[in-house]
């Protein structure tokens, strides 16, 4: 690989890295909160609700997916 190609690859990698850092700074807080909340909810369902003998019964009507 020539020097020019190496330089281009380095440039692209640097640009990608900067974009990732920017995105993380902007959206990271929301993503982290979302993921942690989801893990908490799921763990509560698996560890608490499931063990309490509360079987799930599908809601009869008025279900609307967003």
């Amino acid at each position, binding site marked *: 690989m020539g020097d020019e190609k190496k330089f281009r690859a380095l440039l692209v990698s640097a640009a990608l890295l900067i974009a990732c850092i920017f995105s993380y700074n902007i959206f990271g807080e929301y993503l982290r909160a979302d993921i942690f909340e*989801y893990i908490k*909810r799921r763990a509560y369902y698996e560890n608490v609700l499931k063990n*309490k003998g509360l*079987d799930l*019964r599908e*809601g*009869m009507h008025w279900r*609307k*997916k967003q």
Partner: protein
Amino acid sequence: MGDKVRCELCPTECELDNYQIGGCRTRINKSGVLYSLVYGKPCSVAIDPIEKKPFYHFLPATAAFSIATAGCVLDCKFCQNYQISQARPEEVDHKDLPPADVVRQALYYGCRSITYTYTEPTVFYEYMFDTAKLARDFKLKNTMHTCGYINSRPLRELAPFMDAADVDLKAFTEDFYSRICGGRLRPVLDTLVELKKAGVWIEITNLVIPTLNDDIKKISEMTAWIVNNLGRDVPLHFSRFFPYYKLKNLPPTPPGTLSDARKAALDSGLRYVYIGNLAGGGQNTSCHKCGRLLVERSGFRVNQNNIINGRCGSCGTGIPGVWG
């Protein structure tokens, strides 16, 4: 994190993320499907006199098989059953009692009706619906004590199986509903009209709370609305408040306030106005035409009943209600 689901059962219409539980504490979104957590899992099962609901014009002196699960669609600061209504299903003891067993036990104990009560039955809609449907096949009546906070589509679907509803009309201002109950008044009024249209026998209960909803002008507005929209024959129960839950700072309702409210309701044109939670007068039913005593009650007990085939035993006037 998976599909969101909007619950359309009550006017709050919670939008739930995956594994999130609704405000009523009884409905969960699991992978884009909405589930009930309390189907066939009542936390309260009892046999009560129907007068306790209170129903005064519906099968007097009969037993009602009463069930409730945990949860509620509102958060009333004066709730008398907050230990179960504001609890999560996993926090209270529950029994396994599928609809067939509810009906079987109601028949076994000689009950004439099944009542969905104590907490808000809307939260166990599917359980109530299936039980009510099955009960009909065995000639059992279905009644509910509800806050009326339910959307019209589920209500319309349920109404054909419901014989009577006692609706808590907690106040006649949006402010009271939002500050004290965490809900809205309008949907409750819509429910009352919808039930009336569907031919469900309605009785209304209004808990009179000092300083919060005891303004006689507002009570008169409420009773006028009842007369204009539901008719003069809807029984109205003014119930005495006692300090409880988050309203321990308020005094019990003075008996005079209840008498004033009753007088205002009678002046509005209502024919059957009762006072509850208070020993003494205001519990008996008299004929609206000849004034003779028809049903004498003390507490939840019926001492005498002079209604014959739905008519006044004295003058023969038809008395509104479900009597046989």
